[in-house]
């Protein structure tokens, strides 16, 4: 489990796990959906977040507001830790 949960950590995780292809300097408020994240990728993302951060995101968090950018995703995870 990796407790460091900030936007940079999220970008690194998304890149390492091949969930969505991002440049290393992808901005904290960049739109992940515009970058190619789709519903299939979100399903993988939920599994990976659980493995890395021990947080099981559910249907209520599966929104653009909660996961649409690295910063928002990090905040969503922290709020559940």
């Amino acid at each position, binding site marked *: 489990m990796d407790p460091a949960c900030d936007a940079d950590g999220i970008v690194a995780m998304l890149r390492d796990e*091949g969930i969505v292809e991002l440049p290393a300097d992808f901005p904290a408020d960049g739109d992940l959906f515009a970058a*190619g994240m*789709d*519903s*299939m990728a979100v399903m993988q993302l939920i599994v990976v977040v*659980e493995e890395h951060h021990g947080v099981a995101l559910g249907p209520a968090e599966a929104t*653009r507001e909660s996961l649409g950018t690295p910063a928002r995703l990090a905040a969503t995870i922290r709020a559940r830790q």
Partner: protein
Amino acid sequence: MTVDVLVVGGGSAGLAAAVTAARQGGAVALVERHGVLGGMGTASLVHSFCGLYRLGRDQPELANPGMPGEIEQRMRRRSGIDPVRMGKVWVLPQHPVDFVRIADELVEESGVETRYHSELIGIERRGAGWLAELVCRGRREAVAAAALVDASGDAVVADLLGAESKLSEPARLQRPAYVFGVNGVAGELPPLVIGAAIVAGVREGDLPEAARGLHFRTSGRPGEVFGTLDLSGEEAGAGYDPTDPRCLAALEGRGREVAERVTAFLRERQEGWAAAYISHWPMRAGVRESRRWLGRAVLSGAELMAGARHDDDIAAVSWPMEFRETPRGPKLRFPESGRVAGIPFAALTPRAGGGLFVAGRCLSCDHDAQASIRVMGTCFATGQAAGLAAARAAAGEDPAATPAALAAAFGPVPGLAD
């Protein structure tokens, strides 16, 4: 029966080939295992046309002239649905029910003789042409043809002739998928929420792990959605082989089982799904990659990345390489410079020669290039080229002049204009 051109397989490539050949005036027969044309786009319920439009454009501009645009227009007229942008690419949602009827109209208008419920089981050289053996319900029929198009998706003609072909190793083959129709869904479809509900269902042990390969999209018709379940291909054990009936049987069975379990689960859990039911199964599980021809040229992924052009290009590549080597969604690879490659006529031309051409997802290419050229918009274009080549060969004209004849008939290729 004696014809000028025999087209094997009535998927998107074979449809375009047969209609194009028939419009040249000769007698054309199209042999198809099922009772509908459209192949994966109907029998497997694949429900969007990819590869119709140029890559890297702000607007949906057709990549290839002729048949792709004609089918696009007919689909838009029937469905009333415009192209949609998905990330960096444009796609046209298509409904398999509409596609079947568009194909009916096209073969009817152009005078193609369809041989439905018939399977090509043998092929041999006969004089300057070919003698094909078909079987329908146990009854055999011999068809003599001056020219032949293999649009079987499985390079069946290569296998029957013992000609050079290639099946990627099991671990690299693009994964298969099972697409099914659901009706009775109320309200908007929230794909993210449904995805999360499925992951939760797997986590809690209510759904099998395989359910994580499933996603839903609206069909464009009220209350109807399509589910696409990406499968591992290893449902019958290690070693996916899309030409092995044991393996295919396991895809079908497992696909239906998981589809039914997830639909029942969502009926219980998901808002708007209380009255949802599975309304159609596909005629066959979807196979993205199987046997490929190795012809005079073998189009490669490296050429696609580099935007290679050839003197004998007959169409523009119009889709990124879409890798599906795992059942966990696509990985897209776009050409490096943004410039797309051309598809050379030599990749539609088996070494065997003699008026034999190939089109669609089994044309001569490597595994990487197949990840792009398999999409239906591109199949319409390669089918059209193979159909014209076959008609010309049957009429005693030099098939090598096909690229020029295509340009004369349909105009320049917009996708190769830059």
